[in-house]
């Protein structure tokens, strides 16, 4: 039996939405190098919709696949939906992750939450 599902391997081998958005209006970075996983999410939000998303990840196969899948799940979606994204949904969309790799999907959820927070913060700063 393979360690990862075919979906995980597909997203790992051909990650979607890799890179940087130079004029992102929400950026979040979570994890730390000590534990071996860092995820960085760049969001471009317009009219409460995620117009574009990109990621950079330092981590194992499931960390890269989770970031990739999470970006696909939020691209073009309204913020109300994006806020509801859970790590479980990311893991399920990947046809499951090994138990000891579930934290990778948690990181993906947290990276998006962190980018959203950054977006809200920038917005309130601009308004004040």
């Amino acid at each position, binding site marked *: 039996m393979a360690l990862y599902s075919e979906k995980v*391997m597909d997203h*790992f*081998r051909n*990650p979607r939405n*890799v*890179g*940087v958005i130079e004029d992102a209006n929400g950026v979040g*970075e979570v994890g730390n*190098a*000590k*534990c*071996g*996983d*860092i*995820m*960085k999410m760049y969001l471009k939000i317009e009219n409460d919709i995620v117009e574009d998303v990109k*990621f*950079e*990840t*330092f*981590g*194992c*196969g*499931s*960390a*890269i696949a989770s970031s990739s899948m999470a970006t696909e799940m939020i691209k073009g979606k309204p913020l109300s939906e994006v806020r509801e994204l859970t790590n479980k949904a990311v893991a399920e969309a990947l046809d499951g992750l090994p138990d*000891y*790799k579930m934290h990778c999907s948690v990181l993906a959820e947290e990276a998006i939450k962190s980018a959203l927070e950054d977006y809200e913060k920038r917005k309130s700063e601009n308004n004040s």
Partner: protein
Amino acid sequence: MIYADNAATTKMSDAAIDAMTDCMRNTYGNPSSLYEVGQRAKEVLEDARDEIIKAIGADNFREIIFTSGGSEADNQALRTAAEIGRAAGKMHIISSAFEHHAILHTLNKLEKEGFEVTYLDVHEDGLVRSEEVEAAIRPDTCLVTIMYANNEIGTIQPIREIGAICRAKGVLFHTDAVQAIGHIPVNVKDDNIDMLSASAHKFHGPKGTGFLYVRKGIKISNLIEGGAQERGKRAGTENVPGIRATAVALKDAIAHMEENDKIIRAKRDRLIAGLKEIPHSAINGDENKRLPGNVNFCFEGIEGESLLLLLDDKGIQASSGSACTSGSLDPSHVLLAIGRVHDVAHGSLRLSIDETISDEDVEYIINAVKEVVTYLRSFSPIWRDLVAGKKEFIL
């Protein structure tokens, strides 16, 4: 496919497979039985023991106990020394920080039973210093256990000097020689070794077989109670086919050691030179005092598991000391012991080659690793920060 994970396990040699299957077909008796096919099995068993005695420079058939592999041999050696020590009121053991878990976890158990263990530093080069062994020996030291060669970074320890020190001080000396036997010359007499562990699957023999050498006169403790096999020191009907194949594989490995060493060493050195060209990388462990087939590097800004998966896609099988490949949160204790910080230890790669690897394979590996490291760095947030000067390079 290029198999470059011989430190994890080796492919059995044809000679060992033939010896094993021949034994299964024709010498299937129980060595404890008195009829012919049993007695023939007994003969096969004792012939194998003789071969092994010769191969490691021992001189008495009582000095070899066949086990289920390296882990069991390590456990039995430490148990033996601990019981001798306890009886004499000596409860101190000296070891190193980067032993195999078969040693480290057994030592942890002994600590819970009241033993005190000194774990010697292995320094940045991955080498124990014999002077530090000498300085650590106390009147209540019952055992020094230092591995012959490290399984991750391949560094070869000054076993002969450590053995001489222990002999002079009257302290038992055990070495886990699982990675060394069949690859570099090992001689229990010249090296002053009292106990030695070996495992067949690391020298093209079968998995689940190994042996423990215990010098004559040392009272061996049992781990497995039962029948009178192995002179009552290891119960259980002997794994005759496995033992036969072990002896054949070891004899073969030693017969070809010199020629193979030359071939492997040249390829190892080419791999090291090629991988050094990758910026912000570093070799782990002393470059020369290492096993002929071991290459171990850290690459800054990337993580080892994704490196391994992409190399596997390119047909290269290797291993890493990253946390993700160990199933724990910490990277390899060996890399931490030589002073690699977590961030860098996660990005490690071990290639362990044998003599079947071709020059083309070597060049292919170098190019593949360069390509994959560059690719993974291209979307690593750590790498971005390093390049942008927001973080300082460690390597």
